[in-house]
């Protein structure tokens, strides 16, 4: 708990290796990183940054990281396309003396620092909220997962399974794979809905809530409590439903600006701060009371974002070190 490390990093370079840029979440994430990097360079906190995106191909990402090693970056921030497949190159980078910070991914190579959410708490928060709304009676839930064989999906689903033990009356009547994509989720949910009983709640992973809502609407079914994922269209739909029939839910999710956390973590490590190997970042949660404030702030069709600056990230690191509650992202005024 020693606050911001002030070591000189003005000559350091930080690269961001991104596995995929093909959705708006990732686009905002990249821009968040670039803006922070540009500002930091202006403030002489670092020399420069670079961003390289692979086209959803782990092997391409791996060879891009090899090239980043060759170019001699001081730190590489990685959003990994696979939890384990980059272990080889991450090790190579560490061996070359490069600081590797993997964020929003479960990279298992021990030499890398990890900046990630606690995905157990993700599932727990979803189920606890539903229990609070629905009570502990027998309720039917639909789980929308990400993609089969994906590490993030597996960890989040494991969290859901763990949390389900505390809610024995809940039943997940089906699960579909929505690929964190509204259109896919809409199609998959539409397909299974006819075969399902009345659904009381929908567990999501982010990016899929709006599509699920469209599917229920298209099937002419009442909207269950769909846990939203911080997209503007989800919040707008929620607000509209709330105004017309008092619909309530909550929204939970990652923020694209987690790339900024990773950036500052890397910078702080370079500056000499003692950083634990795992830095937990808080999820951004929106409840009914904050809905209007967040909705006003998020751009049309975009994703709820927040800014993580250097002091905030230092606080987050310190909270991790001290095992204190993480500083949350306050709702905009």
């Amino acid at each position, binding site marked *: 708990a020693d606050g911001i490390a002030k070591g000189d990093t003005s000559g350091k370079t930080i690269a961001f290796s991104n596995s995929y840029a093909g959705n708006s979440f990732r686009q905002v994430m990249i821009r968040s990183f670039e803006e922070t990097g540009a500002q930091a360079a202006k403030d002489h906190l670092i020399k420069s940054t670079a961003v390289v995106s692979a*086209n959803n191909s*782990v*092997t391409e990402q791996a060879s891009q990281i*090899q090239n980043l090693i060759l170019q*001699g970056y001081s730190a590489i921030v990685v959003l990994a396309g*696979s*939890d384990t497949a980059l*272990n*080889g190159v991450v090790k190579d980078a560490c061996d070359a003396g490069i600081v590797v910070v993997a964020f929003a991914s479960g990279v298992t190579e021990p030499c890398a620092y990890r900046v990630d959410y606690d995905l157990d708490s993700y599932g727990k928060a979803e189920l606890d909220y539903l229990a609070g709304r629905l009570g502990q009676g027998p309720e039917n839930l639909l789980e929308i997962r990400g993609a089969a064989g994906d590490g993030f999906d597996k960890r989040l689903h494991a969290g859901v399974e763990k949390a389900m033990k505390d809610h024995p009356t809940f039943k997940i009547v089906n699960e579909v794979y929505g690929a964190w994509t509204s259109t896919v989720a809409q199609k998959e949910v539409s397909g299974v809905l006819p075969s399902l009983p009345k659904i009381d709640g929908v567990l999501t992973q982010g990016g899929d809530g709006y599509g699920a809502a469209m599917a229920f609407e298209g099937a002419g079914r009442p909207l269950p409590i769909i846990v939203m994922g911080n997209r503007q269209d989800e919040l707008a739909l929620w607000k509209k439903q709330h105004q017309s029939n008092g619909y309530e839910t909550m929204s939970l999710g990652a923020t694209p600006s987690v790339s900024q956390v990773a950036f500052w973590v890397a910078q702080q490590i370079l500056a000499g701060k003692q950083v634990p190997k795992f830095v937990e970042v808080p999820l951004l949660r929106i409840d009914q009371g904050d809905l209007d404030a967040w909705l006003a702030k998020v751009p049309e069709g975009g994703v709820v974002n927040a800014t993580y600056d250097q002091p905030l990230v230092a606080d987050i690191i310190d909270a991790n070190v001290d095992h204190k509650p993480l500083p949350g992202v306050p709702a905009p005024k």
Partner: protein
Amino acid sequence: MTDATTTDAVLAARRLGLARRPWLRDALGVGLPAVALAAMLAVIMHIRPTAMSYFGFTLLFKLATPLVFAALSQMLVITLGDIDLSNGSFVGLVTCVTALFLADAPVEALLLYVLAVAAYAAFGLLIHVQRLPSIIVTLGMSFIWLGLAVILLPSPGGAAPAWLNAFMNWRPPLLPLPIWIALLAALAGHLVVTHSSYGAVLRGAGANPRAVERAGWSLLGIRAAVYAAAGSLAVLSGLALTGLTTSGDANIAPSYTLLGVGAVILGGGSFTGGAVSPVGTVVGALTLSLAGSLLSFLQVPPTWQIGAQGVILFLVLAGRILVAEKTP
């Protein structure tokens, strides 16, 4: 009368001169991707002179090794006039098998490889006997491999045997390991496919299967053998990939399918059957592997990076105007 034969001869010789000389065409087929590769390396050396070292080349081409094998596997299938859309997911399946079993249960792992290769050959037979379009059968196969991989290894994990990691990180004398492997693969491919007497039969079967059948060869056997060999090369690709990444992942290599096709085409091959070059394919695989990561050197703005990949693809393939026949 002898007059006439000389005319014929003169004419034949002249036509041969006019039609592009075969050796020239072959040389161009390998030469063009080599030029593209050299150009990309020059760009990289210019940006980062230290890349021109044993260490630099190791890093640049490390991840090309599995792609080389995958591309050679694709090449064999293309030789017969087929296309293999399941190549990438098969490599993924192999990484899962390797990461799960090879270290602790090598016998079982070997058995699984053999089974997988046999399955590949069986699909080749199915395509042949039923005269099915390979594009759709291999599309179905890609789902099957992916499904098996996900059943085996629901999320990325497992561990490659230590000897495999050690081998893939081995630093042999003179040249970096990826370069050695590429050279050996190109040489072996050339000897088997281009030079050997059975390679001639194989290429003939791709171009004019009826003629080869009439000469007394079993097309069924040829296709089964080729698919089995393609499966074996894909196993090698998966092994190399597991050695590099140290783990298995069902979704690791779907991009190998189209990259492999691209490498074959870039190496002077075509879909007409029988027209492929193993050396060209290896060079093409190195080139495409580098093209994907060249971006990290070029500082292309993030939103244009993928577009730049398209442009690079066009640039490295532009030389085909010189060699390719007019029809696709």
